[in-house]
Structure formats: C-alpha cells, structure tokens
C-alpha cells in the first residue's frame, strides 16, 4: 500500500552532505491557496456570525424572548450588527468561491483520492481514534492522510455545503422559501446554519492541535506543497 500511495505523489530526493532526504509534493498550489483563503474566511465568517447571532441570540420567538447563549463580545468581529453583516456578506463570497474552486480542482485533478473518506477507510477510523484519544498503538501510516483525517476533511466539505445552502436561505428566505421548506422552515434553517458553524468549530481545535504536534515539516508543507520525510515513504 505504501508504494501505491507514494506513486500518486511527485517525490524528490534531497542530497545533503551526510544523508538523503525524501520529499513528497502533498499540496498542489490550488489546494494551498484554498486552504489559507478558507482559513481567513472561516475566521471572519465565524466571528462575525457570532456577532450577528448576538443581536438575537435565540432560536425561538421574539415575544417572549428566551436567549439561548450569551456570546462574549471579544469572540466577535465587526463591532456592531451592521459591521458584522458587512464582513459576513463580503467574506461569504470568498468562502463560496474558495470552496467551489477547491472542490472542482480536487475532482478534476483526481487529487481528491488522497483525502476523500470512502468505505475503505471505515475500518481504520477506530484504531486511529484509539491511538489519538486512548494512547492505543499507532496504526501503520501508509498514506498522506489517515482514515480519521479523511473523515474530518471530508465532513468539513459537508459542513461547507450546509453552511452555504442554509446561509443562502437565511439571506433570501422570501425568494428561496421552497429551499427552506425541506430544511424544516426558517427557524430550523437558523439552527442548521448554527450547527454548520459548530461543525467547523469542532474541527478547528483538533486540526490546530495536530498541526502543533506534528511539527514544522507538516505545517511548512501547506505553505510550499513539499513535505520532507513524510511518514508513509
């Protein structure tokens, strides 16, 4: 298996004085661009989204109003509702265009195969989770992405689709009420939109912790594309 996944990636050998390193081209340019543009837009969408939600922090009726959560101001961006809406409706474009570009590129280039979670990966999820959370033995690394990573990255695409569709309905509930209908109506759409954000929020801390644990080579590969001495080679 190791040979097979290695074949999917460009590799180079790097000659130093005393040793030879190997590097694999893990992240093509489009993917890296999309990753950082998405990091910026997700940050803006979440922090301004929280500010927008703060204007009416409930999923129920206005009268009587039952607040669901009190979001501290320091977690939010935009200053006031109007400012947050400006950011939200500006970065929504960046978020959607980035997402479409990424997904289109992955499909057209075939690059999706290294990261898409498929039936074949199901059996590998538990051993990997056991390793991460319960100090289980580390499963053999044969590919750039392990099953748990594939699951996380693949589900983040679904969070993105959910966030986008529900976002459109919240933006244009009168024009798109036929789309709100199968989502359970306007009030539920607000909840789905909030849950899409929760999906991203459940992904981001784990992602950042793993980046910190895996060190510089791993982080650097998302900047330059090349990963030195990957585990699977």
């Amino acid at each position, binding site marked *: 298996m190791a040979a097979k996944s290695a074949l999917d990636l460009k590799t180079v050998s790097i000659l130093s004085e005393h040793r030879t390193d190997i590097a694999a081209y893990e992240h093509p340019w489009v993917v890296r661009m999309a990753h950082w543009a998405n990091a910026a837009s997700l940050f803006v969408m979440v922090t301004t989204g929280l500010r927008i939600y703060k204007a009416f922090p409930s999923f129920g009726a206005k009268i009587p109003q039952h607040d669901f959560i009190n979001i501290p101001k320091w977690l939010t961006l935009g200053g006031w509702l109007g400012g947050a809406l400006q950011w939200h409706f*500006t970065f929504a474009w960046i978020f959607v265009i980035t997402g479409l570009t990424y997904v289109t590129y992955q499909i057209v280039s075939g690059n999706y195969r290294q990261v898409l979670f498929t039936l074949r990966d199901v059996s590998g999820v538990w051993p990997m989770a056991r390793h991460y959370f319960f100090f289980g033995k580390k499963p053999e690394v044969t590919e750039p992405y392990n099953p748990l990573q594939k699951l996380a990255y693949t589900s983040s695409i679904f969070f993105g689709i959910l966030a986008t569709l529900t976002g459109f309905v919240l933006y244009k509930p009168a024009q798109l009420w036929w789309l709100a209908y199968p989502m359970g109506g306007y009030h539920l759409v607000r909840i789905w939109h909030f849950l899409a954000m929760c999906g991203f929020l459940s992904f981001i801390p784990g992602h950042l912790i793993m980046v910190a644990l895996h060190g510089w080579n791993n982080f650097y590969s998302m900047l330059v594309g090349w990963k030195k001495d990957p585990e699977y080679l």
Partner: protein
Amino acid sequence: MAFLALFTANDAKPNNGNDMNPDDNPEKASVSPSDVREAPSDEEKVLTHRDFSRMSRRELLKLSPLVVLGAFAIPRVQEKLLEKGVALSDWASGEYFSKSRLARTFKDSDVVPFEKFPYNGYDILDPEVDLDSWTLTVEGLVRNPGEFELPKIQTLPKIVQNTRHVCVEGWDAIGNFGGARVSDFLKFIGADTTARFVEVECADDYYESLDMASMLQPQSLMCYEMYGKPLDRGHGAPLRLQMPTKLGYKQAKYLTTFRVTNVLKSDRKGYWEDQGYSWHGGL
C-alpha cells in the same frame, strides 16, 4: 453511501491522474538545459539541499496573491473593501429578485397573536402624528403630485395578507396586514415606473429609499391595517410600507413623503443604510 461507493470503485481503477505523466511535472514545464542536468527525467528527481530550498521558496511565493486579503486588516482600505463587498451582494440581490416571485403566505392559524407581534422603532414608538390632519406628500416623477389623504389611498383595492416579517436582527413574526398595493398606488399617482427608486420620509425623521422592482412586487403594500384594525401608533399609524420581500428596516413607518426619483443622495439612502446596513435589504 452509494456516493462514497462510487468513489471507492473509481479508486480501484488504474491511476489515470496527471501525476503519472512526466510531461505534466510543473518543475519540467519551463526547463532550461542547466535545470535538466540537476533534475534527471527519472520518476524521482534528485536535488541538492540548496535547490530544494530554492524550489520551496518559489512555491511559497506562489501564495503571494493571498496578501490581497491582508488589505482587510488596514483600517482605511477595510471600509472601502467592505463597502464594495456589500455592494456586490446588493447587486446580486437585485439581479436575482423577480417581482413575479411571491413570498410565502400563511394560514390564519400561523399568524402570531397581535400582542406577540413586536413593536420595533429606531427612536420613539409614537411620533405623535396628528391623524386627523395627516396627508401623504407625493412628489418627484409623478403626473399627480400633491397631498393625499388616507381615505383617498383607501379607495384603491384592499389587499389582506398573512406574511412573515423578518428583522435584520434575526427574529421574525408572521402577521396579518392590510392595505393598498404599492403598484396600484404608483399607477394612481401617475408615477413613472421606469424610474429607479422611491424615497420615503417619515414623521419620526426616519427615511428610506427602495428599488422600483421591489415596490412593484404585488405583495408590497401601502399598509394601513394590521389584524383588521387601523394601524396603531406603535406600528406606524396611519400608513407604513409592508413588504414581505424586504427586511423590517426597509418597511418605513409613519410615512409623510413619497418621492419617485432616479437619483439618490449618497448620504441619504436610508437611516440605517447610511450607518452601514445593506441598501437592498431584500429577502
């Protein structure tokens, strides 16, 4: 699951991706003879440490377009960029809007009780309009400008509808509204409906401007009734705009002036718009 299986099946096929084709190697795309010497055309290239660093730097520089996003962190540029972003969203909203597309209407049993329909004002809930002497001043690109009393407006066909009122803050309420179609009123005053905007002014010094397409949408009302009773003072007596295709802040209350125009003053697009809300405000 079938979707995932599809990809799995696809995966089992021989690799037909571009990676296998040595001609697609970007490092080879613009090779000079000296590069070829350093990088033999084997499947796996061999680079010196220095060359690898140089290649990495080049890849890093390719991300430089992202620096543009950094402009959002510069306060002076930021305001302009956000204005452009909102303008883009407003433009797309206007393009997508169709006046023949109707907002959803609701059964009487879906309407919230009158007491649960929120009062919401920017300043005061009762600008103390003298309802007996009130008239609506009509001006601009119309054949019949002048003062219009409420009974005159009430001679137009009365529309009663249960529609959802959505506030920019995120709450909403389904209410029962009655009034004349704005489109009928525009005909009544002989308005040039090819004009781009309608400006309104209000007794509480609120002001708004709206796109003609939304005004012509058949559910847009010159509203003088709620729940079968004349508008009360908190909801905008004697006359307000009621438009299920617009956010609440577009639906001005306590109307006093109605002006058809092709020109908007840049600093008087609307009370909230002038502070940063989207001008289109369409739902």
